[in-house]
């Protein structure tokens, strides 16, 4: 299907500046001050994005529950992942702790989000 319309199309033109149905808006700008303590750097962003971050992590938890038929794996992530991964390199470890504090999410779930790339390269 990838090679036939409407799943493929001739090279588009005139799409810039972005508008129309494939454009969902500009991405908001934030400043992260690297002079601040790592735990404090992401506070403003997380304060603004707490709800969508919680929703996204909840979705991942729901998928895990669906595939593995239970909460045990999520419990493992929440309670054991920080200990299993041990000290991640600085300043990332402290930054994740700050994000967990600011969002109210368990540290293990914030860590899981941050190691998503490594886990999904299979």
């Amino acid at each position, binding site marked *: *299907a*990838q090679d036939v319309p*409407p*799943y*493929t*199309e*001739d*090279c*588009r*033109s*005139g*799409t*810039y500046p*972005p508008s129309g*149905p*494939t*454009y*969902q*808006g*500009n*991405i908001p*700008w*934030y*400043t*992260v*001050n*690297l*002079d601040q303590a790592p735990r404090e750097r*992401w506070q403003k*962003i*997380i304060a*603004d*994005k707490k709800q*969508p*971050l919680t*929703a*996204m992590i909840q*979705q*991942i938890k*729901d*998928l895990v529950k669906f595939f593995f038929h239970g909460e045990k794996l999520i419990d493992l992530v929440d309670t054991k992942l920080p200990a*299993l*991964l*041990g000290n*991640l*390199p600085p300043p*990332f470890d402290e*930054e994740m702790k700050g*994000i967990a504090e600011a*969002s109210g999410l368990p540290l293990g779930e*914030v860590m899981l*989000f*941050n*190691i998503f*790339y*490594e*886990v*999904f*390269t*299979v």
Partner: protein
Amino acid sequence: CTSVVAEDTSGKLIHARNMDFGLFLGWDVKNNSWMVTELLRPLAVNVNFQRNNKTVFLSTSFAGYVGMLTGLKPGVLTLTMNERFSLDGGYIGVLEWILGIRQGAWMSFLTRSVLENATSYDEAKTLLSKTVLLAPAYFILGGNKSGEACVITRSRQSCLDIWELDIQKGQWYVLETNYDHWKPPLPIDNRRAPAMKCLNRTTQKNISFATIYDMLSTKPVLNKLTTYTTLMSVSESKFEAYLRDCPHPCMPW
């Protein structure tokens, strides 16, 4: 993902990417969309990392994610990372990490470190090609001078290939999706050929933010997994990022 670095006829480099993520992470039958992709879009943020009130680097990222996948270091380099799938994948690196074998670097942490600390294109290239990693990856790197662009293909342990821009031989862009550039892509996921067709049709003399955005807006380069498009130019200090959608009918990947 689709990443490209192209050089215009004046020698300026433009680096752009479509960020695709969320494959197989829950399909929403009602809305014809990937659930995680939909939930990632509201998390997209542009971040200006500063030290002493001066910009160190700019990045498009996701709130809650401290590593970097897309970034520009003013006057020095641009960098994007694309996922490289392999049986010897990152899950093995994570297992090794848990078992105490911890010489590998986490992918997005390395990318951020390079954006934060590298002082030149060559230094960045060395770091990205020689550091032992936890997962395979493609690093797409652009510099600040004519000819400074490459795709670094990495396994966890070593650098498999560095594919450089070569203007003398007519190679005025490097383009990477999620397959080794010397092999054909998966037939059901060929975004490379449509992207190259659009760039070749555009020609080097017409390359710009607008024409690269056109290419990244063409299905299936734009697909149901695309969360954002970022356009970067070191020489013009321009960094633009846009949230994307691919309304039905559109390829799921």
